Structures are given as structure tokens and as C-alpha cells.
């Protein structure tokens, strides 16, 4: 059962709201203060990725964010974009990043994944159990 559930139309302006809510719930749940910047960044990246996919595929459905604090702080960010679009994420190395032929969207996607993988020790990206889409699941320990 999610402690807090938020859904928002896939527009960039709402990603900040999701970040703020995610950090507020994390703080309330007892996530260590020094991890909150990383929580904020990771939730932002997961939501940015979801919004980008919805816009790329013309999906008007809302992006779902679920936060729960039973034992750990777990955040699920669920998109409704075609699954094949979401698989194959990989971090880029310095040579790839500097490559002139890499466009800004692909670069941003690669950098976003590097940030998620770098800041979240317990990270899963997988197809949703029902219907179309993927979920990014991130878990942080609670300090209590």
C-alpha cells in the first residue's frame, strides 16, 4: 500500500512538484538528511524520463508516482509508453558524451540513466505487471 500516490499530466512543469513531494515524504519517512539531495535528483530523473517518453509517443495518460515507507522508502515511477522504448538504457562514457553526432535528447537520456544508476543503490527498471509501460523502482533505507 502506497503511503502517498501522485499522478500528474506528462508536462515538464509538474516534475518539480513530484520532486518536492517525493523529498517531503522521504524526510517524513525518516530517510537520512544527507541522502535527500540524491532522492530529489533521482525522483526528478525518473519523472523526467517518464514525461519524455509520454511526449515522444503521444501518450496523454498521467505519470504515476507512488511512495511508501513500510520498512524502507520505496518510490515507483510508472509510465505508459511502449515497453520497447524504455529498454536498452545505458550510461555513456566520456568519449560518447563528447561525440559530435550524439544528439541532445539521446545524451540527456544517457546522462539521466547514469544519474539514476549512480545515485540509487537499489534500482530496478522493468515492465509494469499489467498493461503497457515501465516502472522505475527506487529504494532507500530508513534511519529509524
Amino acid at each position, binding site marked *: 500500500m502506497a503511503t502517498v500516490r501522485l499522478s500528474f499530466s506528462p508536462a515538464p512543469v509538474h*516534475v*518539480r512538484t513530484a520532486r518536492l513531494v517525493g523529498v517531503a515524504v522521504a524526510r517524513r519517512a525518516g530517510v537520512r538528511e544527507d541522502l535527500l539531495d540524491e532522492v530529489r535528483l533521482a525522483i*526528478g530523473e525518473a519523472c523526467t524520463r517518464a514525461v519524455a517518453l509520454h511526449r515522444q509517443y503521444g501518450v496523454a495518460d498521467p505519470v504515476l508516482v507512488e511512495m511508501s515507507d513500510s520498512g524502507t522508502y520505496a518510490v515507483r515511477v510508472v509510465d505508459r509508453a511502449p515497453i520497447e522504448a524504455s529498454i536498452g538504457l545505458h550510461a555513456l562514457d*566520456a568519449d560518447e558524451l563528447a561525440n559530435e553526432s550524439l544528439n541532445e535528447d539521446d*545524451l*540527456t537520456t544517457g*546522462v539521466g540513466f547514469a544519474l539514476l544508476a*549512480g545515485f540509487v543503490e537499489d534500482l530496478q527498471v522493468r515492465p509494469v505487471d499489467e498493461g503497457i509501460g515501465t516502472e522505475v523502482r527506487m529504494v532507500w533505507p530508513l534511519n529509524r
Partner: protein
Amino acid sequence: MELSLATRTVGEHTVLEVGGEVDVYTAPRLRERLLELIDGGARHVVVDLGRVDFLDSTGLGVLVGALKRLRTADGTFALVCDKEPLLKIFRITALDQVFPLHPTVEAATGAGA
């Protein structure tokens, strides 16, 4: 906090001071300003991230775009950043190997950035 952008000139360098949050919503404004500067003839651009309190992959993408644009125009591009949380973002993404990063504007403009 909203994005803030202010430009000043230090010698032959154009320094863009950025403040607030650079994310998927505000990054287009940063991109627009950088393009204006470069299209307006700026060839040695320094972006001062000293007052940035949030930077995501979209903002990083815009910065890389400006770096590449200036490189093809025989220009230079450098960043000023001394905040550990932001520096960690550059390290994790390997972008610390792509951008010249300086602790102060003086270092960035004096280092021939």
C-alpha cells in the same frame, strides 16, 4: 526557486551566471540564452553555476550542446562550480572529463578557458 540568468563580460569572456533550478522545465530557457549569446558572437563562454541549487540531465544536455556548438565555432566553453553535490553529478556522469570545470570565475577566465 525559479531559474535566473544574468550575463556579464570579463575580458574576452562572456560569463553567464545561472541561479535556481535547472531542470526539464527551465532548461529550454537556458538553451535559448546560450544560443542567443553564441549566435550574437560570443566565442569564449563561461557558465557560472555558483547559485544553482538543482541541476538535472536536461540541464547537463543543454550545457553539452553549448560546448559542442562553441567547439565547432573555434570557441571555448567552461563551467564554474565549487559545490560538492553538483561536482558529484559531473563525476557520476563522466561529464567532469568533458567540461573544463573551475572553482571560480577568475580561474575560468584567467585559465584561458
